[in-house]
């Protein structure tokens, strides 16, 4: 429980502080990069889970994550192409990727039921953190209407994943 909370808090603070530290709200190209990166991170975590998870519900959940996040990211790529926006790497994206790589390495050391629980707990925390960032920062900061709308769809998808992850976590106990 402590681990789960601390992961969520860490992810949240990275998401909100890094961009705020620049003293300005993130630009659309930065927002697009952050959102895309957030999806890539969850796909990587899910691919690890498809390999490692023992529990059938956990494996299925991971497959759902790959499918949905790939679909969202495809939409994001189509949109930036259409808008002729080049996603721009930034401190928030970098911090997210670094933290995700550490988490992936940490999860890689676990096995069996320990891994399943840790993966799902992290999925709950991660989606919660991303949802918080979407709601409080990324969506309000987005200037382009189509980008804003895609982020809003993303938020609904991620909220759905959070609830789904919570259900899977409850069954593992």
């Amino acid at each position, binding site marked *: 429980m402590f681990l789960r909370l601390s992961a969520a808090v860490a992810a949240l603070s990275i998401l909100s502080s890094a961009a705020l530290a620049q003293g300005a709200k993130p630009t659309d190209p930065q927002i697009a990069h952050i959102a895309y990166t957030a999806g890539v991170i969850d796909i990587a975590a899910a691919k690890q889970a498809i390999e490692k998870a023992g529990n059938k519900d956990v494996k299925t959940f991971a497959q*759902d994550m790959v*499918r*949905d996040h790939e*679909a969202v990211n*495809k*939409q994001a790529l189509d949109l930036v192409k259409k808008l002729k926006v080049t996603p721009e790497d930034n401190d928030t994206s970098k911090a997210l990727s670094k933290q995700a790589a550490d988490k992936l390495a940490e999860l890689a050391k676990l096995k069996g039921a320990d891994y399943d629980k840790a993966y799902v707990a992290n999925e709950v925390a991660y989606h919660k953190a991303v949802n918080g960032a979407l709601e409080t920062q990324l969506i309000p900061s987005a200037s382009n209407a189509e980008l804003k709308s895609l982020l*809003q*769809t993303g938020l*609904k*998808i991620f*909220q*759905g*994943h959070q*609830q*789904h992850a919570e*259900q899977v976590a409850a069954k593992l106990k």
Partner: protein
Amino acid sequence: MRPGRYLPAMAALLFGTMAVPAHAATIQITTTDLVFAPAEVSAKVGDTIEWINKDVFVHTATARNGDFDVNMPPKKTVTSVLKKAGTIEYYCRYHPNMKAVLTIVP
């Protein structure tokens, strides 16, 4: 492939359509941006629901009481016939924040 070969298929299509009892209706329920619309639908046993998924995501229409579980592939329409009466709350298994109600009268 002479035209004649299509006749049985066409006949089946025609009679298939005609065989549907006159009182059975077809009702459309759409998912757009993770929302079932209309959120509340009334129907009768024997009615057909056309589940139209406009999203790029797979959804399900899953009855909480287990009466139905319809898989809705992205950008596709699937149909199901209502078999049992009741006020059914249903949701999407992949995105449990998607919820709606189907009231089915006998």
